[in-house]
């Protein structure tokens, strides 16, 4: 489709969250009827970019953005997603925003129902109009036809296969007469191969009808298959913007994960370990969105074992499952002794600790003091920081000891806070993360799981957190399993890096291995090369 008229153009978009730069001079145009493949690692800035495009509140609340968003050449300033919708931009979200109890039709025309006015309109306003269900159904059917998929307008969303939900979602967006630009965030993530095929056909059909599509996906072969142009974001910078003709999955992968400057490996020496400390076999974990299907690996005493992979592939499920936070099964051994699953207490008592990726949700008592946050687990698991009163009748909290402990960590990890009794909620992300680390260090575990240790904290803090881990590993010989979406930080401090895709480990590489190798493992291409290698040949 050789149309040249530019529909949307982003010019020098820059955005930072409190000094933490996430987008820098991002520019690209979207033309009528064009499909853009937008790819990048997690945290590369895709989401933020889309939020800016949709005028979401978070952007304004965090100090707005720099640069211009132009539609048909005029600059626009969206105050809310509704403005964006009125301007003709539609978005189908990763997590469906459909009403399960409603039918396909009702969802497609949600709040845009066709109505017949009644006498009561004059008394109580337009909302007293009666729904014109036949017409609604017609419109829905028309939209579905436009999409070229077969959806029954009358089935309840709750009873649909997930693929159809995705289609319904898209149908709702294009049902708006205005919609000219359609943003799809990971539309195929939840689809089966065949469903994905259908979707891609549908998108082609839409594009042909003149709608421009921004297609965000991790499945690179799909991107190549559907997109006219691929735009690669890395650390908030566009590193590549090129037509897809002749581009291979391998190329894109390497562009995506290309070396970043933010963190570099301390020393290149390769350590070797002998003794196994920890082994996992046939592990499955039922963690919503991060399902682990069949995990097998062993960790050697004293090493830092990295686990990487793209979001939703199950890497987060591993520590959460082993520590008993989500239903899990399989065989896990520490020091050769089997670890009882689904019982957090026993896992902790065996000498493992976990720094959760969900800092505010699981990691902290936001409303309590730092002392509590750091000492709590140790107190509960190892009866530390308690002192007897009434002649040993009761044992109560030893506030003094807790304070000393806290002061100690505040000093070691140089946590920025007014006092040990400050509430955790008042700390910055980086310092909160340090508190979480301190909590785990306080029980002196043999094996420490760290999950997304640097998520959502600024570069400087990242460095400090990684250094702390490095220090504890080197000085106290603490074995660490580090799970992270940021390949570079894994490569910077890990001794081995395993890559997870679709709930399984696709490969374990030394940190010094070539980037493309990681990229390919991440995008699960090892699987798809064998199955349909044609995609990227």
């Amino acid at each position, binding site marked *: 489709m050789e149309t040249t008229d530019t529909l949307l153009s982003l010019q020098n978009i820059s955005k930072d969250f409190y000094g933490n730069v996430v987008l820098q001079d991002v520019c690209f145009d979207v033309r009528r009827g064009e499909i853009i493949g937008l790819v990048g690692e997690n945290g590369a800035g895709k989401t933020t970019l889309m939020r800016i495009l949709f005028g979401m509140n978070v952007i304004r609340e965090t100090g707005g953005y720099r640069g211009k968003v132009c539609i048909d050449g005029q600059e626009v300033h969206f105050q809310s997603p509704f403005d964006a919708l009125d301007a003709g931009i539609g978005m189908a979200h990763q997590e469906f925003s459909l009403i399960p109890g409603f039918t396909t039709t009702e969802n497609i025309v949600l*709040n*845009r129902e066709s109505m017949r006015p009644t006498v009561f*309109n*004059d*008394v109580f*306003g*337009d*909302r007293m109009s009666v729904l014109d269900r036949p017409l609604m159904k017609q419109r829905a059917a028309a939209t579905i036809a436009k999409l070229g998929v077969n959806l029954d307008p009358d089935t309840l969303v709750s009873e649909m296969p997930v693929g159809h939900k995705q289609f319904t979602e898209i149908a709702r967006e294009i049902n708006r007469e205005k919609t000219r630009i359609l943003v799809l965030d990971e539309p195929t993530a939840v689809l089966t191969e065949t469903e994905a095929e259908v979707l891609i056909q549908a998108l082609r059909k839409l594009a042909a009808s003149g709608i421009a599509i921004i297609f965000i996906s991790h499945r690179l072969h799909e991107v190549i298959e559907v997109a006219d142009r691929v735009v690669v974001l890395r650390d908030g910078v566009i590193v590549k913007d090129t037509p897809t003709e002749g581009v291979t999955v391998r190329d894109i992968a390497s562009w995506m994960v290309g070396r970043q400057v933010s963190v570099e490996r301390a020393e290149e020496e390769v350590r070797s370990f002998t003794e196994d400390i920890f082994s996992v076999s046939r592990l499955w974990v039922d963690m919503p969105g991060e399902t682990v299907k069949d995990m097998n690996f062993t960790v050697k005493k004293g090493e830092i074992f990295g686990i990487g992979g793209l979001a939703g592939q199950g890497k987060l499920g591993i520590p959460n499952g082993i520590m008993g936070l989500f239903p899990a099964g399989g065989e896990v051994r520490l020091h050769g002794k089997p670890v009882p699953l689904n019982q957090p207490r026993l896992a902790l008592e065996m000498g493992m600790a976990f720094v959760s990726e969900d800092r505010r949700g699981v990691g902290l008592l936001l409303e309590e003091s730092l002392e509590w946050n750091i000492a709590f687990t140790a107190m509960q698991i190892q009866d530390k920081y308690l002192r007897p009163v009434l002649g040993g009748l009761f044992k109560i909290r030893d506030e003094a000891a807790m304070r000393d402990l806290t002061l100690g960590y505040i000093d070691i990890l140089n946590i920025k806070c007014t006092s040990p009794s400050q509430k955790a909620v008042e700390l910055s992300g980086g310092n909160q993360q340090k508190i979480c680390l301190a909590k785990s260090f306080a029980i002196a575990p043999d094996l420490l799981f760290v999950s997304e240790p640097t998520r959502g904290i600024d570069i400087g803090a990242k460095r400090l957190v990684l250094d702390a881990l490095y220090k504890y590993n080197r000085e106290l010989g603490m074995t660490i399993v580090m799970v992270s979406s940021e390949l570079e930080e894994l490569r910077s401090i890990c001794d081995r890096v395993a890559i997870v895709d679709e709930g399984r480990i696709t490969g374990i590489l030394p940190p010094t291995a070539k980037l493309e190798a990681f990229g390919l493992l991440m995008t699960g291409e090892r699987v798809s090369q064998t199955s349909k290698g044609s995609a990227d040949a």
Partner: protein
Amino acid sequence: MNGASIDPKVKTRRALVRAVLAVVYLGLIALVFSLGKGHTIILDNKDSDDGSIKALESLTVSVDGQEPIDLSSGDRDMAKVHGQGHQVEITVKDAQKVTHQVHVPLGEDMVLLSLPALLSGAPSSLIPFVPKEIAAPADDQGNNNSFTSPDAPAVPGAPPAPGAPVVP
């Protein structure tokens, strides 16, 4: 949507409709009030105070087709009615039935209707009647127990003390 952007013509029409509705509402209250207001008509068969009009020896009266009442001279009885206009049918013995329209003023709870005056077509047959003293029934504080002492505070939803019946 949601009536955010509707053209002024519709707006004015709606304002109008709503205004009319408000008026109708008030009108309806007034109507129901006048139609439903209960009055007591005291039918009496006595000489008028100045003695100009003499009581009849005996008569039968019925208001709005209610149960006919016999009144001999000096008698007095009453009829409960609602609304303002009423039909009073009087049959003086062995004369034929005469029907009169009386109009009770809205404000009055009780009016005294002198039948002889009415028959003789005197103007002031219907006069307001102020009862001496309605014996007020004794207060029934009984059921009130639940909120008298803060030690047994009322909690709506609390059942009454044993013995007292419950609503349904």
